[in-house]
Protein backbone atom coordinates (compact mmCIF):
# COMPACT_ATOMS: atom_id res chain seq x y z
CA UNK A 1 0.00 0.00 0.00
CA UNK A 2 2.80 2.25 1.00
CA UNK A 3 4.54 1.45 -2.28
CA UNK A 4 1.42 2.33 -4.23
CA UNK A 5 1.26 5.65 -2.41
CA UNK A 6 4.95 6.11 -3.25
CA UNK A 7 4.22 5.27 -6.86
CA UNK A 8 1.34 7.72 -7.01
CA UNK A 9 3.57 10.37 -5.49
CA UNK A 10 6.15 9.58 -8.12
CA UNK A 11 3.51 10.14 -10.78
CA UNK A 12 3.45 13.51 -12.49
CA UNK A 13 -0.29 13.78 -11.98
CA UNK A 14 0.19 14.68 -8.34
CA UNK A 15 2.73 17.37 -9.03
CA UNK A 16 1.78 19.24 -12.16
CA UNK A 17 1.69 22.99 -11.81
CA UNK A 18 -0.58 24.89 -14.19
CA UNK A 19 2.36 26.74 -15.69
CA UNK A 20 4.08 23.51 -16.61
CA UNK A 21 1.00 22.29 -18.44
CA UNK A 22 0.76 25.54 -20.37
CA UNK A 23 4.44 25.36 -21.29
CA UNK A 24 4.05 21.78 -22.47
CA UNK A 25 1.26 22.98 -24.71
CA UNK A 26 3.58 25.68 -26.00
CA UNK A 27 6.16 22.95 -26.65
CA UNK A 28 3.54 20.84 -28.43
CA UNK A 29 2.59 23.89 -30.48
CA UNK A 30 6.20 24.33 -31.55
CA UNK A 31 6.36 20.64 -32.51
CA UNK A 32 3.15 21.09 -34.50
CA UNK A 33 4.58 24.10 -36.31
CA UNK A 34 7.80 22.24 -37.02
CA UNK A 35 6.30 18.97 -38.20
CA UNK A 36 2.98 19.90 -39.79
CA UNK A 37 3.65 23.44 -40.91
CA UNK A 38 7.34 22.84 -41.54
CA UNK A 39 8.30 26.09 -39.77
CA UNK A 40 12.10 25.99 -39.32
CA UNK A 41 11.85 22.35 -38.25
CA UNK A 42 15.59 21.90 -37.71
CA UNK A 43 15.39 24.22 -34.72
CA UNK A 44 11.76 24.27 -33.66
CA UNK A 45 11.51 20.48 -33.35
CA UNK A 46 14.32 20.17 -30.81
CA UNK A 47 13.24 23.41 -29.09
CA UNK A 48 9.68 22.19 -28.76
CA UNK A 49 10.83 18.82 -27.51
CA UNK A 50 13.18 20.45 -25.02
CA UNK A 51 10.31 22.63 -23.80
CA UNK A 52 8.22 19.53 -23.13
CA UNK A 53 11.01 17.71 -21.35
CA UNK A 54 12.05 20.60 -19.13
CA UNK A 55 8.53 21.04 -17.79
CA UNK A 56 8.00 17.45 -16.68
CA UNK A 57 7.51 17.46 -12.92
CA UNK A 58 9.98 15.33 -10.93
CA UNK A 59 12.02 14.43 -14.01
CA UNK A 60 14.54 17.18 -13.34
CA UNK A 61 15.86 17.55 -16.88
CA UNK A 62 17.05 21.08 -16.15
CA UNK A 63 18.05 20.58 -12.52
CA UNK A 64 21.68 20.04 -11.59
CA UNK A 65 22.59 16.59 -12.88
CA UNK A 66 19.87 16.54 -15.52
CA UNK A 67 20.58 16.07 -19.21
CA UNK A 68 19.36 19.49 -20.34
CA UNK A 69 21.20 21.13 -17.46
CA UNK A 70 24.49 19.72 -18.73
CA UNK A 71 23.77 20.60 -22.32
CA UNK A 72 22.77 24.16 -21.49
CA UNK A 73 25.74 24.85 -19.26
CA UNK A 74 28.29 23.29 -21.56
CA UNK A 75 26.95 24.63 -24.80
CA UNK A 76 24.97 27.81 -24.33
CA UNK A 77 26.33 29.41 -21.19
CA UNK A 78 29.82 29.14 -22.66
CA UNK A 79 28.62 30.41 -26.02
CA UNK A 80 30.24 27.43 -27.75
CA UNK A 81 27.18 26.02 -29.54
CA UNK A 82 26.05 29.18 -31.35
CA UNK A 83 29.65 29.82 -32.39
CA UNK A 84 30.00 26.32 -33.84
CA UNK A 85 26.70 26.76 -35.67
CA UNK A 86 28.04 30.02 -37.03
CA UNK A 87 31.18 28.25 -38.24
CA UNK A 88 29.02 25.69 -40.03
CA UNK A 89 26.83 28.40 -41.54
CA UNK A 90 29.98 30.15 -42.71
CA UNK A 91 31.06 26.93 -44.41
CA UNK A 92 27.69 26.84 -46.20
CA UNK A 93 27.61 30.46 -47.29
CA UNK A 94 28.54 31.64 -50.76
CA UNK A 95 29.51 35.31 -50.89
CA UNK A 96 29.82 35.46 -54.68
CA UNK A 97 26.72 37.60 -55.17
CA UNK A 98 27.90 40.08 -52.56
CA UNK A 99 31.45 40.28 -53.87
CA UNK A 100 30.13 40.88 -57.38
CA UNK A 101 27.97 43.75 -56.17
CA UNK A 102 29.36 45.02 -52.87
CA UNK A 103 26.99 48.00 -52.63
CA UNK A 104 24.46 45.42 -51.47
CA UNK A 105 26.20 45.69 -48.11
CA UNK A 106 24.36 49.00 -47.62
CA UNK A 107 21.06 47.15 -47.80
CA UNK A 108 22.30 44.73 -45.16
CA UNK A 109 23.27 47.75 -43.09
CA UNK A 110 19.95 49.53 -43.46
CA UNK A 111 17.97 46.48 -42.42
CA UNK A 112 19.75 46.56 -39.07
CA UNK A 113 17.53 49.52 -38.24
CA UNK A 114 15.17 46.69 -37.30
CA UNK A 115 17.53 46.01 -34.42
CA UNK A 116 18.32 49.49 -33.23
CA UNK A 117 14.80 50.81 -33.72
CA UNK A 118 13.46 47.92 -31.68
CA UNK A 119 15.96 48.61 -28.94
CA UNK A 120 14.46 52.07 -28.67
CA UNK A 121 10.97 50.58 -28.73
CA UNK A 122 11.80 48.08 -26.01
CA UNK A 123 12.92 50.84 -23.69
CA UNK A 124 9.88 52.91 -24.63
CA UNK A 125 7.71 49.98 -23.59
CA UNK A 126 8.85 50.65 -20.03
CA UNK A 127 6.29 53.45 -19.96
CA UNK A 128 3.67 50.71 -19.98
CA UNK A 129 3.20 49.56 -16.39
CA UNK A 130 4.48 46.04 -15.83
CA UNK A 131 7.43 46.28 -18.20
CA UNK A 132 10.86 46.88 -16.79
CA UNK A 133 13.38 46.11 -19.48
CA UNK A 134 16.95 47.04 -18.65
CA UNK A 135 19.22 48.19 -21.44
CA UNK A 136 20.70 44.70 -21.60
CA UNK A 137 17.25 43.14 -21.91
CA UNK A 138 16.36 45.63 -24.61
CA UNK A 139 19.52 44.86 -26.57
CA UNK A 140 18.93 41.11 -26.35
CA UNK A 141 15.33 41.54 -27.52
CA UNK A 142 16.27 43.91 -30.30
CA UNK A 143 18.63 41.38 -31.84
CA UNK A 144 15.55 39.42 -32.92
CA UNK A 145 15.45 42.01 -35.67
CA UNK A 146 18.73 40.56 -36.94
CA UNK A 147 16.70 37.56 -38.14
CA UNK A 148 19.62 35.30 -37.39
CA UNK A 149 19.17 32.43 -34.92
CA UNK A 150 22.69 31.77 -33.63
CA UNK A 151 23.43 35.49 -33.31
CA UNK A 152 20.27 35.98 -31.27
CA UNK A 153 21.04 33.02 -29.01
CA UNK A 154 24.64 34.10 -28.55
CA UNK A 155 23.74 37.66 -27.63
CA UNK A 156 20.84 36.66 -25.39
CA UNK A 157 23.03 34.16 -23.54
CA UNK A 158 25.47 37.00 -22.90
CA UNK A 159 23.08 39.84 -22.03
CA UNK A 160 19.80 38.36 -20.78
CA UNK A 161 19.88 34.59 -20.18
CA UNK A 162 16.46 34.73 -18.51
CA UNK A 163 14.89 35.92 -21.74
CA UNK A 164 16.80 33.46 -23.91
CA UNK A 165 13.92 31.05 -24.42
CA UNK A 166 11.41 33.70 -25.47
CA UNK A 167 13.94 35.46 -27.69
CA UNK A 168 14.99 32.29 -29.50
CA UNK A 169 11.40 31.19 -30.00
CA UNK A 170 10.43 34.61 -31.29
CA UNK A 171 13.44 34.76 -33.61
CA UNK A 172 12.82 31.37 -35.19
CA UNK A 173 9.04 31.83 -35.34
CA UNK A 174 9.31 35.13 -37.16
CA UNK A 175 11.99 33.72 -39.44
CA UNK A 176 9.49 31.04 -40.41
CA UNK A 177 6.84 33.75 -40.83
CA UNK A 178 9.00 35.85 -43.16
CA UNK A 179 6.85 34.81 -46.15
CA UNK A 180 3.81 36.29 -44.37
CA UNK A 181 5.35 39.34 -42.72
CA UNK A 182 7.43 40.69 -45.57
CA UNK A 183 5.30 40.76 -48.75
CA UNK A 184 2.68 43.32 -47.57
CA UNK A 185 5.40 45.69 -46.42
CA UNK A 186 7.29 45.21 -49.66
CA UNK A 187 4.18 45.95 -51.71
CA UNK A 188 3.27 48.95 -49.60
CA UNK A 189 6.60 50.66 -50.11
CA UNK A 190 7.08 49.97 -53.81
CA UNK A 191 5.01 50.60 -56.90
CA UNK A 192 4.35 48.16 -59.71
CA UNK A 193 6.95 49.86 -61.86
CA UNK A 194 9.71 49.46 -59.32
CA UNK A 195 8.89 45.83 -58.65
CA UNK A 196 9.23 45.09 -62.36
CA UNK A 197 12.81 46.30 -62.58
CA UNK A 198 15.15 43.67 -63.95
CA UNK A 199 18.72 43.77 -62.78
CA UNK A 200 21.93 43.27 -64.74
CA UNK A 201 23.59 39.91 -64.51
CA UNK A 202 26.31 39.62 -61.89
CA UNK A 203 29.94 39.40 -62.93
CA UNK A 204 32.01 36.27 -62.39
CA UNK A 205 33.87 36.21 -59.08
CA UNK A 206 37.29 34.55 -58.94
CA UNK A 207 38.26 31.89 -56.41
CA UNK A 208 40.96 34.21 -55.06
CA UNK A 209 38.47 36.95 -54.27
CA UNK A 210 36.31 34.44 -52.45
CA UNK A 211 39.26 33.32 -50.36
CA UNK A 212 40.37 36.84 -49.51
CA UNK A 213 36.87 38.07 -48.67
CA UNK A 214 36.45 36.30 -45.30
CA UNK A 215 39.96 37.35 -44.35
CA UNK A 216 39.20 40.96 -45.20
CA UNK A 217 36.00 40.85 -43.16
CA UNK A 218 37.90 39.35 -40.27
CA UNK A 219 40.65 41.94 -40.49
CA UNK A 220 38.18 44.80 -40.43
CA UNK A 221 36.33 43.28 -37.49
CA UNK A 222 39.58 42.85 -35.61
CA UNK A 223 40.55 46.45 -36.21
CA UNK A 224 37.25 48.18 -35.59
CA UNK A 225 34.97 45.90 -33.63
CA UNK A 226 36.82 43.23 -31.64
CA UNK A 227 33.68 42.47 -29.62
CA UNK A 228 32.17 41.02 -32.79
CA UNK A 229 35.12 38.72 -33.46
CA UNK A 230 33.74 35.60 -31.75
CA UNK A 231 30.75 35.55 -34.10
CA UNK A 232 32.40 36.91 -37.21
CA UNK A 233 35.66 35.06 -36.56
CA UNK A 234 34.00 31.65 -36.47
CA UNK A 235 31.83 32.57 -39.45
CA UNK A 236 34.91 33.57 -41.44
CA UNK A 237 36.77 30.43 -40.37
CA UNK A 238 33.96 28.30 -41.77
CA UNK A 239 33.85 30.32 -44.96
CA UNK A 240 37.63 30.21 -45.36
CA UNK A 241 37.64 26.43 -44.89
CA UNK A 242 35.08 26.17 -47.65
CA UNK A 243 36.57 28.61 -50.14
CA UNK A 244 40.23 27.74 -49.66
CA UNK A 245 39.52 24.29 -51.07
CA UNK A 246 42.48 22.77 -49.22
CA UNK A 247 40.62 21.39 -46.19
CA UNK A 248 37.49 19.98 -47.80
CA UNK A 249 37.14 17.21 -45.27
CA UNK A 250 37.07 19.72 -42.41
CA UNK A 251 34.67 21.99 -44.26
CA UNK A 252 32.32 19.11 -45.02
CA UNK A 253 32.29 17.97 -41.42
CA UNK A 254 31.69 21.52 -40.19
CA UNK A 255 28.65 21.97 -42.41
CA UNK A 256 27.23 18.49 -41.88
CA UNK A 257 27.84 16.21 -38.92
CA UNK A 258 29.19 18.85 -36.57
CA UNK A 259 26.45 21.39 -37.19
CA UNK A 260 23.81 18.64 -37.01
CA UNK A 261 24.97 17.41 -33.62
CA UNK A 262 25.23 20.95 -32.29
CA UNK A 263 21.80 21.83 -33.69
CA UNK A 264 20.15 18.96 -31.80
CA UNK A 265 21.81 20.01 -28.56
CA UNK A 266 21.31 23.73 -29.12
CA UNK A 267 17.60 23.23 -29.75
CA UNK A 268 17.15 21.08 -26.66
CA UNK A 269 19.06 23.57 -24.54
CA UNK A 270 17.05 26.53 -25.80
CA UNK A 271 13.87 24.56 -25.15
CA UNK A 272 15.06 23.94 -21.62
CA UNK A 273 14.77 27.69 -21.00
CA UNK A 274 11.05 27.58 -21.77
CA UNK A 275 9.95 27.22 -18.18
CA UNK A 276 6.72 28.74 -16.97
CA UNK A 277 8.30 31.28 -14.63
CA UNK A 278 10.60 32.57 -17.39
CA UNK A 279 8.24 32.37 -20.34
CA UNK A 280 4.71 32.94 -19.10
CA UNK A 281 5.33 36.56 -18.28
CA UNK A 282 4.28 39.91 -19.58
CA UNK A 283 7.82 40.32 -20.90
CA UNK A 284 7.27 37.50 -23.36
CA UNK A 285 4.26 39.29 -24.81
CA UNK A 286 6.40 42.38 -25.15
CA UNK A 287 9.14 40.34 -26.81
CA UNK A 288 6.70 38.84 -29.30
CA UNK A 289 5.29 42.25 -30.15
CA UNK A 290 8.73 43.84 -30.42
CA UNK A 291 9.96 40.94 -32.56
CA UNK A 292 7.18 41.51 -35.07
CA UNK A 293 8.00 45.21 -35.12
CA UNK A 294 11.69 44.44 -35.54
CA UNK A 295 11.13 42.27 -38.59
CA UNK A 296 8.77 44.79 -40.13
CA UNK A 297 10.99 47.79 -39.49
CA UNK A 298 14.03 45.93 -40.79
CA UNK A 299 12.20 44.96 -43.96
CA UNK A 300 10.96 48.50 -44.51
CA UNK A 301 14.38 50.01 -43.89
CA UNK A 302 15.94 47.61 -46.37
CA UNK A 303 13.41 48.42 -49.07
CA UNK A 304 13.67 52.17 -48.55
CA UNK A 305 17.45 52.02 -48.63
CA UNK A 306 17.23 50.11 -51.89
CA UNK A 307 15.05 52.86 -53.35
CA UNK A 308 17.51 55.49 -52.20
CA UNK A 309 20.42 53.55 -53.57
CA UNK A 310 18.66 53.07 -56.88
CA UNK A 311 18.35 56.82 -57.26
CA UNK A 312 22.09 57.38 -56.94
CA UNK A 313 23.08 54.37 -58.97
CA UNK A 314 23.85 54.12 -62.64
CA UNK A 315 22.46 50.60 -62.82
CA UNK A 316 18.89 50.13 -61.75
CA UNK A 317 18.15 48.35 -58.49
CA UNK A 318 14.89 46.57 -57.81
CA UNK A 319 13.92 47.85 -54.35
CA UNK A 320 12.41 44.50 -53.41
CA UNK A 321 15.86 43.06 -52.81
CA UNK A 322 16.29 45.42 -49.88
CA UNK A 323 13.90 43.22 -47.93
CA UNK A 324 16.45 40.40 -48.06
CA UNK A 325 18.79 42.52 -45.96
CA UNK A 326 17.23 41.28 -42.75
CA UNK A 327 19.07 37.94 -43.16
CA UNK A 328 16.74 34.96 -42.60
CA UNK A 329 18.89 33.16 -45.17
CA UNK A 330 17.68 31.88 -47.61
CA UNK A 331 13.99 32.43 -46.87
CA UNK A 332 14.02 36.21 -47.32
CA UNK A 333 15.78 35.95 -50.69
CA UNK A 334 13.18 33.45 -51.83
CA UNK A 335 10.37 35.75 -50.79
CA UNK A 336 11.96 38.56 -52.79
CA UNK A 337 12.14 36.26 -55.78
CA UNK A 338 8.50 35.30 -55.38
CA UNK A 339 7.19 38.86 -55.05
CA UNK A 340 9.37 39.89 -57.96
CA UNK A 341 7.95 37.13 -60.14
CA UNK A 342 4.41 38.23 -59.35
CA UNK A 343 5.13 41.63 -60.86
CA UNK A 344 7.20 40.42 -63.78
CA UNK A 345 7.15 36.82 -64.88
CA UNK A 346 10.63 37.02 -66.34
CA UNK A 347 12.26 38.61 -63.33
CA UNK A 348 14.41 36.20 -61.34
CA UNK A 349 15.77 38.18 -58.39
CA UNK A 350 17.04 35.22 -56.33
CA UNK A 351 20.73 35.67 -57.06
CA UNK A 352 20.51 39.45 -56.67
CA UNK A 353 18.75 39.04 -53.32
CA UNK A 354 21.47 36.69 -52.04
CA UNK A 355 23.83 39.68 -51.86
CA UNK A 356 21.81 41.69 -49.32
CA UNK A 357 20.79 38.43 -47.68
CA UNK A 358 24.32 37.43 -46.69
CA UNK A 359 25.15 41.09 -46.07
CA UNK A 360 22.37 40.98 -43.49
CA UNK A 361 24.12 38.14 -41.67
CA UNK A 362 27.29 40.19 -41.46
CA UNK A 363 25.29 43.28 -40.55
CA UNK A 364 23.52 41.67 -37.63
CA UNK A 365 26.75 40.13 -36.36
CA UNK A 366 28.27 43.61 -36.51
CA UNK A 367 25.25 45.00 -34.67
CA UNK A 368 25.63 42.29 -32.04
CA UNK A 369 29.24 43.31 -31.62
CA UNK A 370 28.24 46.93 -31.14
CA UNK A 371 25.68 45.99 -28.53
CA UNK A 372 28.19 43.80 -26.72
CA UNK A 373 30.70 46.64 -26.72
CA UNK A 374 28.33 49.37 -25.57
CA UNK A 375 25.80 47.57 -23.40
CA UNK A 376 27.47 44.52 -21.87
Amino acid at each position, binding site marked *: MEKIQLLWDSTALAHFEPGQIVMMIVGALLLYLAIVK*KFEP*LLLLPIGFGAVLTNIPLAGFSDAGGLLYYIYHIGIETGVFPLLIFMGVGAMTDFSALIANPRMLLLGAAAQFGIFGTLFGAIALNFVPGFEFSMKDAAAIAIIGGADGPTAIFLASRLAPDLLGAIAVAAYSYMALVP*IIQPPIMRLLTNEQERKIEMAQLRHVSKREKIIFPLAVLLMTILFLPSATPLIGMFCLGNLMKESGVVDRLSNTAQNELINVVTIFLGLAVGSKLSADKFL*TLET*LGILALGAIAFSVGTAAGVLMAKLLSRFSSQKINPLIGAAGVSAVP*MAARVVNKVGLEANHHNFLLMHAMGPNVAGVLGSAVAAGILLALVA
Partner: protein
Amino acid sequence: MPSDVTSLLFDAANLMVIGMFVVFLFLATLIGAVNLIAWVNSKFPEVEVPVSRHQPSQSKSNIAISSGVVAAISAAIHQHRNNK
Protein backbone atom coordinates in the same frame (compact mmCIF):
# COMPACT_ATOMS: atom_id res chain seq x y z
CA MET B 1 20.94 -10.94 9.34
CA PRO B 2 18.65 -13.65 7.94
CA SER B 3 15.75 -11.73 9.45
CA ASP B 4 16.98 -8.65 7.63
CA VAL B 5 17.14 -10.63 4.44
CA THR B 6 13.63 -11.93 5.02
CA SER B 7 12.31 -8.43 5.37
CA LEU B 8 14.27 -7.38 2.29
CA LEU B 9 12.88 -10.38 0.49
CA PHE B 10 9.39 -9.32 1.43
CA ASP B 11 10.09 -5.88 0.00
CA ALA B 12 11.41 -7.49 -3.17
CA ALA B 13 8.28 -9.60 -3.57
CA ASN B 14 6.23 -6.50 -3.03
CA LEU B 15 8.26 -4.63 -5.64
CA MET B 16 7.92 -7.55 -8.04
CA VAL B 17 4.14 -7.56 -7.83
CA ILE B 18 3.77 -3.79 -8.06
CA GLY B 19 6.37 -3.54 -10.81
CA MET B 20 4.72 -6.12 -13.03
CA PHE B 21 1.34 -4.58 -12.31
CA VAL B 22 2.49 -1.13 -13.35
CA VAL B 23 4.29 -2.41 -16.43
CA PHE B 24 1.13 -4.20 -17.57
CA LEU B 25 -1.08 -1.27 -16.67
CA PHE B 26 1.16 1.14 -18.56
CA LEU B 27 1.51 -0.93 -21.70
CA ALA B 28 -2.16 -1.93 -21.67
CA THR B 29 -3.10 1.74 -21.52
CA LEU B 30 -0.75 2.27 -24.43
CA ILE B 31 -2.68 -0.37 -26.39
CA GLY B 32 -5.77 1.74 -25.82
CA ALA B 33 -3.91 4.82 -26.93
CA VAL B 34 -2.68 3.19 -30.13
CA ASN B 35 -6.15 1.92 -30.92
CA LEU B 36 -7.52 5.39 -30.27
CA ILE B 37 -4.95 6.93 -32.59
CA ALA B 38 -5.80 4.39 -35.28
CA TRP B 39 -9.50 5.09 -34.86
CA VAL B 40 -9.10 8.86 -35.03
CA ASN B 41 -6.77 8.42 -37.95
CA SER B 42 -9.36 6.39 -39.85
CA LYS B 43 -11.97 9.07 -39.18
CA PHE B 44 -9.79 11.82 -40.62
CA PRO B 45 -7.95 10.09 -43.43
CA GLU B 46 -4.65 11.60 -44.42
CA VAL B 47 -4.85 13.77 -47.49
CA GLU B 48 -2.26 12.23 -49.73
CA VAL B 49 -0.19 15.26 -50.62
CA PRO B 50 1.73 14.35 -53.76
CA VAL B 51 5.06 15.70 -52.64
CA SER B 52 6.63 17.66 -55.44
CA ARG B 53 10.13 16.47 -56.16
CA HIS B 54 11.26 19.92 -57.13
CA GLN B 55 11.10 21.82 -53.91
CA PRO B 56 13.10 20.82 -50.88
CA SER B 57 10.73 19.98 -48.03
CA GLN B 58 13.42 20.72 -45.47
CA SER B 59 13.20 24.43 -45.18
CA LYS B 60 9.88 24.99 -46.86
CA SER B 61 7.52 27.18 -44.97
CA ASN B 62 3.82 26.80 -45.39
CA ILE B 63 2.60 30.26 -46.18
CA ALA B 64 -1.09 29.46 -46.22
CA ILE B 65 -1.14 29.33 -42.44
CA SER B 66 -2.23 32.32 -40.47
CA SER B 67 0.23 33.89 -38.12
CA GLY B 68 -1.88 32.48 -35.33
CA VAL B 69 1.22 31.23 -33.56
CA VAL B 70 1.94 34.44 -31.82
CA ALA B 71 -1.71 34.94 -31.05
CA ALA B 72 -1.87 31.49 -29.49
CA ILE B 73 1.16 32.04 -27.30
CA SER B 74 -0.18 35.42 -26.23
CA ALA B 75 -3.50 33.85 -25.30
CA ALA B 76 -1.72 31.19 -23.27
CA ILE B 77 0.20 33.80 -21.35
CA HIS B 78 -2.88 35.84 -20.58
CA GLN B 79 -4.66 32.72 -19.46
CA HIS B 80 -1.80 31.81 -17.19
CA ARG B 81 -1.42 35.25 -15.69
CA ASN B 82 -5.11 35.50 -14.97
CA ASN B 83 -5.12 32.12 -13.29
CA LYS B 84 -2.32 33.02 -10.94
